[in-house]
C-alpha cells in the first residue's frame, strides 16, 4: 500500500518540527522568563531594602535602649510600609505594627485600623512571629540587614529584617538587640511575572501552531514529489515505459526526479531494444518459414510420387526415395508448426467458433486418426460448447498422440463440464513426468531427454496446443496423477468470446 509510508514520513516530519519548535520556544521563552523574573524581583527587592533602610533611620534617636511592647509596636509601625505588616523583637518580646495594647505572651494583635485595608469588610491579616523564618532571624541577630522571600497566607512577600544598631562615639557600632522586620508585598511583581508567563505560554503555543502549519506545508512540499515518484515508479513497474515526472527547482528532490527520468529513459530504451530484437527474431522465424514453404511445396508435390515409385526402384535408390519422402513430410510438419506459432506470436491467430457437441468432437478426433480402439473415453452426452473445432482437434490430437507414444496404456480421455467450463483430461498410466520436465513441457523445442534428440513431431506440438487453449481464453496444464501417469487438463470456456464476430 502506498499511503502508509508517506503517512509515516509525514508523521515523523511533523513530530520533528513540533519537537524542535517546543524545545526552541521553551529555551527562549523560559530563558527570558527567568531573566525577567529575576530582574523584576531584584529591582523590587532593592527598592524595598532601600526603603527599609530609610525607615530604620527614622527610629533614631531611640527613646529607650530597652523598649517595652508599646515602644516596639511604635517601632514596627515606623518600619512598616504601605502593607502595614511589620514586627519588632526585643529580648523575647515582640510587637506588631499598629498594636496599641500590650501584647500577650504570644497573641498577635488584631488591629482593624491598620492601613491599607486590603479589602473592606474584612479583617486585615495580622503578622505573627512565625511568619519570620528562623534563618533570617539568626542573620539579623548577627547584626546584618537581611531579606528573604516568603509566602504568607497564600501571598508572596519579601521579609526584610534589620537590627537596630547603636553607633557609639568611637564610631563603633553595637547591636542593641532590637530587631525590626517589615513585610513588603510582592503581589504586583507576582502579577507582572504571571503575565510574563502567560505571554510566554501564548507565544510558545502560537509558535507551535505556526510550526505545525509550516511542517504540514513543508511535508506536503516534500511528500508530493515523493508520492509522485512512487506513482511513477509503480507505473514504470507495470510496464508503462513512457512514464516521466516533472522536474521542479534544483533541490535534492529535483535531482532524484532527474535521476528517475534518466533511469526510466534508459530502461525504456533497453526494453524497446529487447522488444525489437525479439520481434526481429520472431519475424526472422516467420520469414524463414514462409520462404521455406515454396520449395517445400515443390518437394511435397513430388515426394508422393517418389514414395509410390520407391518399391519399383533398385534398393539403395528405393530406400533413399522413401527417406526423402518421409523427411519431406517431417519438414513440412515442422515448417507448418513454425508458421502456426509465428501466427500466435504476431497475434493474428483467430478463432473460428462453432457450437459443437464436445463428445462428438473427441470421437471424431480419435476416429480420424484410428485411435478409437486404443483410447478409453468417458464422454457424457449432450455437452455442447462454442469453440474452434479445428484448434481443439489439434490440441487433443497432440495430447492423445503424446500419451500413446510416450506413456503407457491405457490412455484415457475424460470430459467434465459445468455451466461455464469444459475440462478434458488426457492421461496415461506410465511413470509420469519428472518435476523438472513438468515445468518445461510447454516450452518450444523442449526435449524431455537429451538422448531423444529427435522424436516424432516438431517439438512445437505442446506449445501450439497451449497457445490454442489460450486463444480460447482457456488453459492447458499438466500434472502427475496421484496413482501414476501424466495427466494433461484442457480447460475451455463453454461460450468462448469471439473477438472478431466470426460466423454466428
Amino acid at each position, binding site marked *: 500500500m502506498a499511503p502508509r509510508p508517506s503517512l509515516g514520513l509525514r508523521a515523523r516530519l511533523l513530530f520533528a518540527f513540533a519537537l524542535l519548535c517546543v524545545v526552541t520556544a521553551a529555551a527562549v521563552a523560559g530563558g527570558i522568563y527567568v531573566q525577567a523574573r529575576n530582574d523584576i524581583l531584584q529591582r523590587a527587592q532593592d527598592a524595598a531594602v532601600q526603603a527599609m533602610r530609610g525607615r530604620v533611620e527614622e527610629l533614631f534617636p531611640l527613646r529607650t535602649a530597652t523598649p517595652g511592647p508599646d515602644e516596639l509596636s511604635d517601632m514596627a509601625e515606623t518600619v512598616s510600609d504601605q502593607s502595614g505588616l511589620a514586627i519588632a523583637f526585643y529580648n523575647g518580646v515582640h510587637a506588631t505594627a499598629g498594636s496599641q495594647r500590650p501584647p500577650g505572651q504570644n497573641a498577635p494583635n488584631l488591629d482593624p485600623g491598620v492601613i491599607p485595608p486590603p479589602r473592606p469588610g474584612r479583617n486585615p491579616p495580622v503578622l505573627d512571629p512565625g511568619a519570620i523564618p528562623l534563618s533570617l532571624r539568626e542573620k539579623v541577630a548577627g547584626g546584618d540587614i537581611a531579606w528573604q522571600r516568603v509566602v504568607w497566607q497564600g501571598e508572596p512577600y519579601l521579609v526584610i529584617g534589620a537590627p537596630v544598631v547603636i553607633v557609639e562615639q568611637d564610631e563603633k557600632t553595637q547591636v542593641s538587640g532590637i530587631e525590626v522586620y517589615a513585610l513588603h508585598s510582592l503581589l504586583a511583581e507576582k502579577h507582572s511575572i504571571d503575565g510574563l508567563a502567560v505571554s510566554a505560554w501564548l507565544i510558545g503555543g502560537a509558535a507551535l501552531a505556526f510550526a505545525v502549519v509550516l511542517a504540514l506545508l513543508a511535508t506536503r512540499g516534500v511528500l508530493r514529489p515523493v508520492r509522485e515518484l512512487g506513482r511513477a515508479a509503480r507505473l514504470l513497474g507495470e510496464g508503462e515505459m513512457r512514464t516521466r515526472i516533472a522536474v521542479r527547482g534544483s533541490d535534492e528532490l529535483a535531482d532524484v526526479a532527474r535521476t528517475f527520468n534518466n533511469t526510466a529513459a534508459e530502461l525504456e530504451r533497453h526494453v524497446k531494444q529487447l522488444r525489437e530484437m525479439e520481434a526481429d527474431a520472431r519475424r526472422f522465424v516467420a520469414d524463414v518459414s*514462409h520462404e521455406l*514453404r*515454396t*520449395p*517445400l*511445396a*515443390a*518437394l*511435397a*508435390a*513430388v*515426394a*508422393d*510420387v517418389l514414395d*509410390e515409385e520407391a518399391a519399383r526402384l533398385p534398393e539403395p535408390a528405393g530406400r533413399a526415395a522413401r527417406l526423402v519422402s518421409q523427411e519431406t*513430410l517431417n519438414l*513440412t510438419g515442422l*515448417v*507448418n508448426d513454425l*508458421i*502456426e506459432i*509465428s*501466427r500466435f506470436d504476431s497475434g*493474428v491467430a*483467430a478463432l*473460428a467458433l*462453432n*457450437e*459443437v457437441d464436445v463428445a462428438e*468432437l473427441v470421437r*471424431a*478426433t480419435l476416429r*480420424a486418426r484410428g485411435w478409437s480402439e486404443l483410447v478409453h473415453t468417458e464422454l457424457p452426452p449432450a455437452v455442447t460448447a*462454442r469453440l474452434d*473445432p*479445428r484448434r481443439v*482437434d489439434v490440441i487433443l490430437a497432440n495430447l492423445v498422440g503424446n500419451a500413446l507414444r510416450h506413456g503407457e496404456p491405457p490412455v484415457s480421455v475424460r470430459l467434465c463440464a459445468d455451466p461455464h467450463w469444459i475440462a478434458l483430461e488426457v492421461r496415461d498410466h506410465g511413470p509420469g513426468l519428472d518435476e523438472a520436465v513438468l515445468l518445461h513441457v510447454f516450452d518450444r523445442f523442449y526435449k524431455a531427454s537429451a538422448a531423444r534428440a529427435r522424436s516424432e513431431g516438431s517439438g512445437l506440438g505442446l506449445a501450439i496446443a497451449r497457445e490454442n487453449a489460450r486463444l480460447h481464453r482457456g488453459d492447458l496444464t499438466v500434472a502427475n496423477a496421484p496413482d501414476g501417469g501424466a495427466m494433461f487438463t484442457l480447460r475451455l470456456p463453454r461460450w468462448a468470446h469471439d473477438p472478431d464476430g466470426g*460466423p*454466428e
Partner: protein
Amino acid sequence: MIRGVSRVLLIEDDPAVREGLELALTRHGHRVRAVESGEQGLDRLRTDLPDVVVLDLMLPGMDGFEVCRRIRAVGEVPIIMLTARGDDMDVVAGLEAGADDYVVKPVQPRVLEARIGAVLRRIGRDQAELERHGDLTIDRAGLVVAKRGVPVSLAPTELRLLLELSGTPGRVHSRQQLLESVWEHGYFGDSRLVDACVQRLRAKIEDDSAAPVYVQTVRGFGYRFGPV
C-alpha cells in the same frame, strides 16, 4: 462419379511447384494443363474447357482473386485455391471471390487429389421428381435449378449445398455436417467454406440475401432449408 480422366487447369507461378503438382496429378490420371499466370489461365479456360481449376492466389500480374472473379464471370467451373498457411484473410477473400475450396501449401498431392475428386463428384440422379419450394424449382434428375421458371446458374458446390439442404426441408444442418457431406472435408474442415458458399448461393436464389427465405441461418447451430 467422374473417375479417371479429368481436365485440370493449374495456374501456379513457381516453376518447381507447378512442375511437382503437374507430375503428381498427371500420375493420378488427370490431364493437367499448367500455366504460370492468370492471363494465360483465362485464355486456356476458353480453349481447354477444364473440369476444375487449381489456382494459386499469389500470382504476379493479375492476382488470384481477380482471376477467380473472372472465371466466375464466365462460368461455373469448380475452383480450388492454393493458399499460404496463415493468410486467413486470403482464404476469406478467395471464398468470396467464388472459390469452392482451398488447400494450404505445402500441399500433399493426395490431399489436393481428394479435393478435386470431391468438387467433381456428381450427385446421384436417382430421384426423378421435380421439387417446388415457393418460387424455386429443383430438378434433381437434370440438376437444374430455376427461379420463377428462369434457370439459375449454380457452381457445382453451390448446387450440391442446395441439394443437400433442400433434401430435408426444415432440418438443421450443422456446418460440420455440411463440410462432411458437401466438401468431404471430414469433421474439422474450415466452416468458413460453408458460410462463403451460403452467401454466394443466397445471392443467386434469394430475393433479398439479407432476409433469406430458402437458406436460413439457425444461430449457433447451422443452416436450414425453409420452411418456405
